[in-house]
């Protein structure tokens, strides 16, 4: 059977089934298993759209529910946010940056697990701890910068920027970023190890789970800090 015929056969195999043909084509023709997975997953004209929708929908609904719970917290305390203009401006910034921390931690930790770099205790890994220190430095820098810009713009919109308010806004932004970095770092290790021990690919689960958790807890931490400081 020619390679073309084998690939055509592979396209017809149900995606939920592992077919021995994958191993055969991989060994004989030196085509990577990732390529063969892609052929089996998507390469029929009819199923690309339905495969993507089916596989993404549950995770996206889960993420939507978690975000809506976070949004409920915002709605409940919206008077605080509407009055505190710098916090209102900071909200999308912190949300994006903290979501990105979740993505970076989960994707990098998944790769480290696959490459066998986490053999003993994760905290003994120089690479992982290096990543954590990077995030702390970047978190402090970007949170401070974002706060300053938010305060400047709020000042231009006639918000009364006093030294006391400036200190509080910068403190909220810094504490929120640092707390979330610590939380996401711990969760990516705990969840990553758990998923990896279950013989699943952490890449497929860790990113959506961690970004949803990051969004939800960011709102909770932000509300808590705003209520504490103001």
């Amino acid at each position, binding site marked *: 059977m020619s390679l073309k015929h084998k690939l055509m056969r592979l396209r017809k195999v149900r995606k939920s089934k592992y077919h021995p043909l994958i191993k055969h084509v991989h060994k004989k023709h030196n085509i990577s298993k990732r390529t063969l997975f892609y052929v089996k997953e998507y390469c029929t004209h009819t199923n690309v759209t339905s495969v993507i929708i089916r596989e993404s929908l549950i995770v996206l609904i889960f993420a939507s529910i978690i975000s809506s719970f976070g949004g409920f917290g915002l709605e409940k305390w919206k008077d605080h946010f509407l009055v505190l203009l710098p916090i209102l401006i900071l909200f999308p910034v912190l949300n994006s940056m903290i979501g990105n921390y979740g993505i970076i931690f989960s994707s990098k930790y998944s790769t480290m697990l696959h490459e066998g770099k986490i053999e003993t205790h994760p905290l003994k890994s120089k690479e992982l701890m290096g990543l954590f220190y990077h995030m702390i430095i970047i978190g402090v*820098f970007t949170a401070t910068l974002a706060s300053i810009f938010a305060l400047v713009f709020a000042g231009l919109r006639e918000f009364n920027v006093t030294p006391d308010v400036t200190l509080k806004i910068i403190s909220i932004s810094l504490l929120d970023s640092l707390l979330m970095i610590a939380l996401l770092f711990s969760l990516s290790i705990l969840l990553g190890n758990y998923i990896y021990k279950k013989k699943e690919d952490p890449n497929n689960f860790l990113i959506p789970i961690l970004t949803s958790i990051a969004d939800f807890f960011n709102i909770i931490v932000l509300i808590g800090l705003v209520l504490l400081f103001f």
Partner: protein
Amino acid sequence: MKLLFDKEFDEILSGQVISLIGGLIAGILLAVYTDNLLLIPAMFILIPGFLELRGNISGSLSSRLSSGLFLGVIKPKIKNDHLLNGNVIASFILTILICAILGLLAFLFEYILFGIFYIKIIFIAVFAGFIANAMLIPLSVYFTFYLFRKGHDPNNFMGAILTAFGDVASVVSLIFVVMIL
């Protein structure tokens, strides 16, 4: 010290600065249009999920296209290709479905917990989601192909680009829909 400020540090910092710029623009728009946008019932419930959706859908689209490009099953040209079409159509359908769910959740939370009946929030979510993705999906495809053609790994840049553009596009589309509805 030199080891700490390495290439990885630069790449992560660049991505975060791009996100910061996008987030600040979105935040400033929210502050400027507070009366039009944030005083609408359930809008605060909708916004976190709505902002997250851009990354979740366009980010996944870009990631799938990048995998296809590296594997050689997708060519970095915008043409009539079943994989590209399937990805784009799926992203649009997912957007409409999830925006409807987000709108419905916002409506239910607002009605059950605050006693405010504001069904318009579902239409706002769906129309704004459609407009935001009409901007972002072509942008995701274009930039993913462009970066790949220029010899870069789109995975390293698209997250930050989409978060930044996504935040701005989402807030702009919400403002636009709220003003016309």
